[in-house]
């Protein structure tokens, strides 16, 4: 049913891609200032809807349906120049929307000038004014650098400022803050909410996480395979009366539990890693050195934002960088006195699982990646190697994949599991896990968490988890050390830290991932 008076009225919108519907009979009415959050996994249809409304649908897609914008009929797919409202697009900075060789400022200014139909000078001024309204110290001068030299959060603020400068009627946000770190996500969503309140634009936000529905409020539309599963506000959808898929989706999305108690792993044994007075910051006083111990089979999380010092500590612990002071004993061997050759032998007992998949060589095959540690370190027959390989791939759910497929052609989900399989065959004593759930959909995150937990339960390596997200720390570790501005500020069992955080920075990290209305403890389901 077509409705006049609404900002946007979509009826029976269908997008066919290669004959397959990526969006199926989707209808939406959006009034001025209203928001709609499209919650679903990749391929659920959110991206297709944004591309149709934004006027950048693929030419090969077949689009049918009806669209009315402020009462007047608009031909689909919508061409930006022909819609009577101003539409702004807000992408994720990690999707690399900018040309790598030109400054971000130049590109944002051009975008604003083009959308406003104004000269570059006035576009620059609009951007400057928009940036001034935001907290933090992002200035036009700071943005006058190539994208590769800026951190993603700064670029995200620049993108948000450019949207604000366009004074849009409708904003299309495409996973705009995903994988930027919990504190940054919270800050950016609050800024977006503030701008929406100030400018009164309508918002359609495609997301796969819980933060946007919680922080932005409004209508949540759960989507799956191009269809609407159900619609409502976040709290109602969290209740036990929601559709089965919705309940499963919400259960899969990571949330902090303030009451969950985890029994310590029974595999905890002798000390594996002993750190005495380790100082990893050249400017720090030696007495500020860190002392801690990690036992076999235990799991410790190093929690903190980017630049908080957790990776510097890790590099010092594993002797990649020479520490100004302190001593590290790994598996009863002092790492600092080792030669390169001996250190290399010790490092065979360490494995890495990273959220950027950069540890994988894209040229290698799936089988080659898993077999390499065996072939490099052990003198095994081909049959034995194949046996270990198959067992590891089975455990992570990759056994059915074509073994000669190149790593470069795998999805992020497959690559993450492949890293775990490679770690499994190496039988490491210590696994360093760095933001393992980055870039994964909800169900994929659940599976990777389970695979890692199973790995630790069956083979018993110790885990050293690096993350900015307390939900990840809680899922994979029992104890935590919290870092802020290069210093260790708090430590202890995660349960106790969550119950009674002492430091403000720790509280901020907890609040960044706490969703009081949506916490596990509050939900009845």
């Amino acid at each position, binding site marked *: 049913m077509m409705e006049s008076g609404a900002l946007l009225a979509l009826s029976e919108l269908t997008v066919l891609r290669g004959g397959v519907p990526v969006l199926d009979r989707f209808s939406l009415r959006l009034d001025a200032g209203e928001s709609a959050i499209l919650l679903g996994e990749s391929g659920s249809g959110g991206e297709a809807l944004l591309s149709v409304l934004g006027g950048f649908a693929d030419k090969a897609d077949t689009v049918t349906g009806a669209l009315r914008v402020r009462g007047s009929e608009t031909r689909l797919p919508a061409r930006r120049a022909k819609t009577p409202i101003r539409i702004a697009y807000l992408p994720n900075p990690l999707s690399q929307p*900018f*040309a790598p*060789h030109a400054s971000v400022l*130049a590109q944002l200014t051009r*975008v604003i000038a083009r*959308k406003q139909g104004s000269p570059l000078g006035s576009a620059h001024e609009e951007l400057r004014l928009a940036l001034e309204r935001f907290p933090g110290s992002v200035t036009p001068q700071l943005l006058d650098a190539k994208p590769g030299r800026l951190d993603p959060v700064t670029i995200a603020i620049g993108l948000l400022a*450019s949207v604000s400068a366009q004074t849009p009627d409708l904003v299309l946000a495409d996973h705009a803050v995903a994988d930027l770190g919990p504190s940054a996500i919270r800050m950016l969503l609050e800024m977006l909410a503030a701008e929406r309140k100030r400018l009164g634009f309508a918002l359609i936000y495609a997301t796969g996480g819980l933060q946007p529905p919680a922080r932005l409020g409004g209508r949540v539309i759960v989507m799956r395979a191009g269809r609407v599963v159900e619609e409502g506000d976040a709290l109602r959808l969290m209740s036990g009366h929601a559709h089965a898929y919705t309940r499963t989706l919400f259960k899969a999305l990571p949330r902090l539990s303030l009451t969950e108690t985890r029994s310590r792993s029974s595999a905890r044994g002798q000390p594996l890693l002993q750190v005495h007075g380790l100082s990893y910051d050249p400017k720090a006083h030696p007495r500020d050195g860190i002392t801690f111990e990690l036992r076999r089979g235990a799991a410790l999380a190093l929690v903190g934002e980017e630049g908080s010092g957790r990776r510097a500590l890790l590099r010092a612990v594993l002797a990649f960088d020479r520490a100004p002071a302190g001593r590290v004993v790994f598996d009863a061997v002092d790492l600092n006195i080792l030669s390169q050759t001996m250190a290399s032998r010790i490092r065979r007992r360490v494995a890495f699982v990273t959220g950027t998949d950069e540890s994988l060589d894209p040229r290698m095959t799936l089988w080659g990646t898993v077999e390499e540690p065996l072939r490099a370190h052990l003198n095994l027959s081909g049959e034995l190697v194949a046996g270990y390989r198959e067992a590891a791939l089975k455990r992570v759910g990759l056994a059915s994949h074509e073994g000669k497929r190149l790593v470069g052609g795998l999805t992020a989900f497959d690559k993450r599991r492949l890293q775990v399989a490679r770690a499994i065959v190496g039988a490491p004593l210590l696994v360093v896990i760095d933001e393992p759930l980055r870039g994964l959909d909800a169900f994929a995150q659940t599976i990777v968490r389970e695979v890692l937990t199973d790995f630790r339960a069956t083979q018993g390596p110790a885990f050293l988890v690096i993350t900015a997200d307390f939900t990840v720390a809680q899922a994979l570790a029992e104890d935590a050390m919290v870092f802020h501005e290069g210093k260790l500020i708090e430590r202890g069992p995660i349960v106790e830290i969550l119950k009674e955080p002492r430091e403000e920075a720790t509280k901020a990290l907890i609040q960044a991932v706490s969703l009081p209305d949506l916490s596990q403890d509050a939900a009845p389901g």
Partner: protein
Amino acid sequence: MRSFLARQAVRLVVGVFGAALIAAAISAIGAPHAHGLAPFFFAAVGRLVHFARGDLGQSAISGLPVLQVLAGSVPQTLLMVLEGACLALVAGLPLGLLATVGPTRRATAPLVQIVTATPVFCAGLALAYGAVHLLHWPVSVNMPVGASVSPDQALQIAALPVVAVGLAGAAAVQLALRRAASEASGGAFRSGLKRLGLSAFEIERRFVLPQVLAGLVASAGEIMMALLSAAVVTEWVFHQSGVADLFVKSVALADWNMAAIVVFIFACLTFVAEFAGRIASRMLASEGRP
């Protein structure tokens, strides 16, 4: 930018010094009594010291100072290379840009392969044949042309080697352009910027074209090498008495001192072109204020 300039300058100086070392070693081959490793080494060091003082020695063929011989032939070759480079840019650049940043890129890829498969001497001889039979021009393929030619004829005779060198340069320009276009078109930024609101034309003009041109300019060293290689062959084919022709004769007659200096000159030309190209590329590629 300053640190970049400094790095490139160091690279240039080190490269030129390396070329001087190699030239000294080649020159020492012709030194009397330089038999055995130690005498050869001292002869090479001696030559290097002489070069540093500006004493390039004498030609073993003519007995004249090398500087004097080069003064008569280097300008001619440099002029031919320069004219060829201009022709390569004037002819190659517009066509190359259209063929690389437009939709015709895929279709022209095999065509470029066919053109670049032709050796310079074959292209030179083909040009001469066409000039004689179609344009009825005089050519200097089989003997140097005497002094009794009209100015028009002299121009026609001089044009062919330049065109041959220019064609070789145009082929190098094409390849450099295609490589730069290939590198510039990687990444998701095109669709990203389109989604943000820029038009395809604006993206190509503002963000892709400068990169492509910067990539081309950065390949100045390779283009110079192609031009110098073409000059060697072209001077021989068309009986031009330039420094490239001098090099071939010096090697044939074992005048290693002369050959060494010519190699040094060619290496320096390549280094200087590479140096200038990298700096120009850096300036083109960095877009600051809108």
